């Protein structure tokens, strides 16, 4: 038993990053058109997922000698089976790469959280279960409900209301106004508002990207960002701002908005730096954490210690000390992963997250309905940028902002909303496939008619390429001009009313509409959002930062080696 423990933990130090690397590689292969529809590659991913889970829980159980881990293991495996196998059974068109990645990241998250606080892992598990059950209905709702795009200003209003609610009902968490409590359940409105914000942007910009429309959305987005900055939730403010800029640039196809966003964001960051002490603190802790190691730099230096000590292959589960990092389960989960499972494993995780993002971008590029396209695109940006913020902050590439690592960090609101986002993407993905199939069927029928009439043939493009939304408008470049008629018919029949691409004939077929869209005045900007600023160490330190016990040691213990010498005072004979 004892001997086995050493061998198993040593084996898993190297096996885990290797398996993770293969898993990520499979993910990238799934992104190619050729392998996307091959089922076996997803099965390989599933096998890797469960092997990784087994190794991690074996480590946990062997090192801790605690049977509780056996129970947690069983429960987690049931949950993961539901995610990667049951969901595709119910929704056979679901994107399995996203499901697998979701399962992989949640599995890792639960392991790491349980290693820091078993109780919290159980709580996280329960929330994950509820989130899954709720989210399972989302694709169905996306397919049923047709009025999503009519609620634009309702989204905008509700979002602002929720964000504002923290000021009335909110609790101060670590110096930031983040959570509100309803019926004994506390949640972070800013998480839910992320979702609402994406819907708002999609609703506002799908049918027109005129300057007036952009300016109107800028007002709403600005209000969101300012509210978040005042509530000291700098990370969320930054995520909203960046998502907004990207979505506007994509919707208008006007790169000047990117310039305007960068300049405006930079200016706002500068103003915020001058105005708010908490922004300055974070920049200070980023630039020179070692000088301020006792206070402002404490969290970030502890995070660096964790990563540096873990190094490439980690100290092994339960063999490090991730608890030394303040707020590790929420803000520094990546550092905890690197400490015990190794940086190599952590990089594998980053690649997995990146494949999720690429998969979303690939979907977005296939969708012709601009409303749904914007939603997928916006969700992708939010997801990937949040990862960049939290990981980049934890390794001191950028200032810390204290946001969660989606699916991995502890935090119910974050988990719930991220999962909902993924299932919304799934819903849209299924919908576009469904419509694509309907269209293909119709085209096949039309061809038969034409063949009888001695006419040409409409190429049913995109067979084998799931989700090229022929049904929604362009239908690929029609082989014959006459195809225009049946194409419209198909679009009408698909049930999606007046999709932009269908009505304006975008996709490059009609230069006129493209020109119209570009008629919006350039360089307008209008987004005076104060955000890109400070993302500093975990919000509000100083209070109860868990360094008491360690620091209580005698003076010499804490002193750096050079300082120990100073005991005798600098010698100037």
């Amino acid at each position: 038993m004892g001997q086995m423990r050493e061998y198993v933990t040593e084996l898993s130090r190297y096996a885990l990053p290797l398996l993770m690397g293969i898993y990520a590689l499979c993910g990238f292969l799934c992104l190619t058109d050729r392998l996307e529809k091959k089922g076996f590659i997803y099965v390989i991913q599933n096998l890797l997922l469960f092997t990784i889970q087994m190794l991690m829980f074996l480590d946990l159980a062997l090192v801790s000698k605690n049977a509780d881990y056996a129970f947690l293991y069983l429960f987690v495996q049931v949950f993961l089976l539901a995610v990667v196998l049951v969901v595709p059974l119910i929704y056979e068109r679901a994107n399995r790469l996203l499901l697998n990645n979701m399962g992989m990241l949640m599995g890792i998250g639960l392991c790491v959280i349980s290693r820091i606080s078993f109780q919290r892992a159980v709580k996280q598990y329960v929330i994950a279960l509820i989130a899954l059950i709720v989210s399972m209905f989302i694709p169905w709702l996306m397919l049923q409900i047709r009025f999503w795009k009519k609620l634009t200003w309702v989204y905008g209003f509700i979002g602002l209301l929720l964000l504002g609610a923290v000021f009335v009902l909110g609790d101060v968490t670590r110096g930031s106004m983040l959570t509100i409590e309803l019926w004994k359940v506390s949640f972070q409105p800013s998480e839910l508002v992320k979702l609402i914000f994406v819907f708002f942007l999609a609703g506002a910009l799908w049918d027109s990207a005129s300057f007036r429309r952009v300016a109107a959305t800028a007002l709403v987005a600005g209000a969101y960002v300012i509210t978040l900055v005042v509530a000291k939730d700098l990370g969320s403010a930054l995520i909203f701002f960046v998502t907004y800029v990207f979505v506007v640039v994509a919707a208008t196809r006007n790169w000047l908005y990117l310039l305007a966003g960068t300049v405006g964001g930079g200016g706002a960051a500068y103003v915020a730096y001058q105005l708010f002490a908490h922004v300055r603190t974070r920049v200070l802790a980023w630039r020179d954490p070692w000088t301020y190691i006792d206070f402002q730099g404490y969290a970030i230096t502890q995070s660096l210690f964790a990563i540096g000590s873990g190094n490439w292959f980690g100290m092994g589960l339960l063999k490090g000390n991730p608890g030394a990092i303040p707020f590790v389960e929420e803000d520094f989960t990546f550092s905890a992963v690197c400490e015990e499972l190794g940086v190599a494993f952590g990089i594998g995780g980053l690649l997995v997250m990146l494949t999720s993002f690429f998969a979303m971008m690939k979907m977005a590029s296939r969708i012709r309905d601009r409303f749904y396209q914007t939603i997928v695109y916006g969700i992708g940006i939010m997801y990937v940028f949040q990862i960049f913020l939290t990981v980049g902050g934890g390794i001191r590439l950028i200032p810390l902002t204290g946001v969660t690592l989606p699916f991995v960090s502890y935090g119910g609101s974050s988990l719930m909303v991220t999962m909902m986002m993924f299932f919304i993407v799934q819903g849209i993905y299924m919908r576009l496939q469904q419509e694509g199939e309907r269209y293909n069927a119709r085209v096949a029928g039309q061809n038969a008619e034409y063949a009888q009439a001695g006419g040409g043939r409409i190429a049913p493009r995109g067979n084998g390429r799931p989700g090229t939304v022929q049904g929604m408008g362009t239908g690929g470049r029609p082989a014959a001009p006459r195809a225009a008629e049946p194409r419209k018919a198909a679009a009408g029949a698909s049930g999606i009313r007046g999709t932009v691409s269908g009505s304006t004939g975008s996709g490059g077929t009609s230069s006129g509409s493209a020109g119209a869209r570009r008629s919006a005045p350039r360089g307008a900007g209008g987004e005076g959002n104060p955000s890109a600023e400070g993302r500093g160490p975990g919000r509000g330190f100083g209070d109860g930062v868990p360094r008491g016990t360690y620091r209580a040691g005698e003076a010499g213990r804490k002193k750096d080696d050079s300082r120990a010498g100073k005991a005798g005072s600098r010698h100037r004979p």
Partner: protein
Amino acid sequence: MSRRGIAATSVFFGVLFAALIGYLAYFTSTSEEEMINNSYNSRQEILLSRNYRGTIYSGDGEILAQTVVDREQNETRVYPYGRLFSHVVGYSTRGRIGVEALSNYYLINTHTSLSNRAENDMAGVKNPGDSVYTTLDVELQRQADSLLGSYQGAIVVTEVSTGKVLAMVSHPDFDPNEIGEIWDSVVESETSSVLLNRATQGLYPPGSTFKIVTALEYMRQNPTAYEEYSFQCKGHFEAGDSRIGCFNGVRHGWVDFDSSFANSCNCSFASMGIGLDWEMFQDTLDELLFGESLPMTMPHSKSSVVLSEDMTEAEKMQTAFGQGKTQVTPMHLHMITSAIAKGGILMKPYVVDHVENDEGQRVKSFEPSIYGRLMTGEEAAVLRELMTSVVENGNGKKLSGEEYTVAGKTGSAEFDESKKDCHAWFTGFAPAQDPEICITIILEKAGNSADYAIPIAKGLFRAYFDGKK
């Protein structure tokens, strides 16, 4: 929304993540040791709870520090040589200094085999930490320690070709075996400086040893004229309304560049100093690492020279011959001397040679490394000649007449105007033509002469060359 726009977005974030991963990989591969060695990192205690602290050896394989475990698994850190290596090997139970601090990362990690680890796990004992082999030479260290005797001060001995530290002594010293018992009294005492490693952290006025630097600068500013230099020393020298004198009021009469240096004529150097371009002098001092961190891993103080355009004549003169506000560490002066010995090239001094696991396999080796040039080869050659004539014809005569020739410079540094008490310096190397070792000595309050340092240098050179036979 165009496909191209979406593709550009994918590429943008792909690149962003590549940067993220690149930085993470860079951080991971460069900073493990630094991160673990930081005293704020609680993982040190975790590693120590799993591994016994490794053993520290001298260059010839003698144990300098080891952890002894009794039957109840109580660990004691034992230093068999007691006070002898107090500063350079240091201690590890009240904070850490010396090699205990420098190589802490290796000492608390283990590279023992997996089967050993499994066995230890079964037996419920810790794993043996890796062993650190230093460059220190027990015999030289012992000689240096006994020659320094009851003086306060420091001695540094390094190998010229590599920068290996062979001996490093600082007095007053302490017994690291008793660090627990003496800790409170040492820390509480305002005046005690026993924990200070004077060799690297003590700051002293350089006295006449600074004439090495002034001579170098004078040569640089008068590339050919310095050979024709001559000066009449009357035992004192006036500039403006201030007056300085030679040590003990000696009159040196007519001196040239070489004999000014060999006889350490203050008046002559004061006169050189008055004529120097002090802005250019500042550049040379920067090159020689004054006011900078030294290229070594041991904690050390920064030497300082106060130069400015509006210095008075008196200040210029004082600075030129090594008094004034100048402060150097013995290690810094030693590095300048050893660079002269190595033709202008500074080797980084180092004290940890390699690391082995419990089965004697090398885990890591530290190779000699070059910091860079402090001066040109020609400048180094001239300075070496000057330092040789100090021993052959000047103040260091007592070092001559051996099988080997010594090159060096003495110094007596006044540290208190009111008392006529001096620190005695010696810095030099041997053999002068093909230097092997470099020695720097400082004796605090040695009395009225630099001569006290010379017998110590002589004893150490002898010990080294006799040991080689």
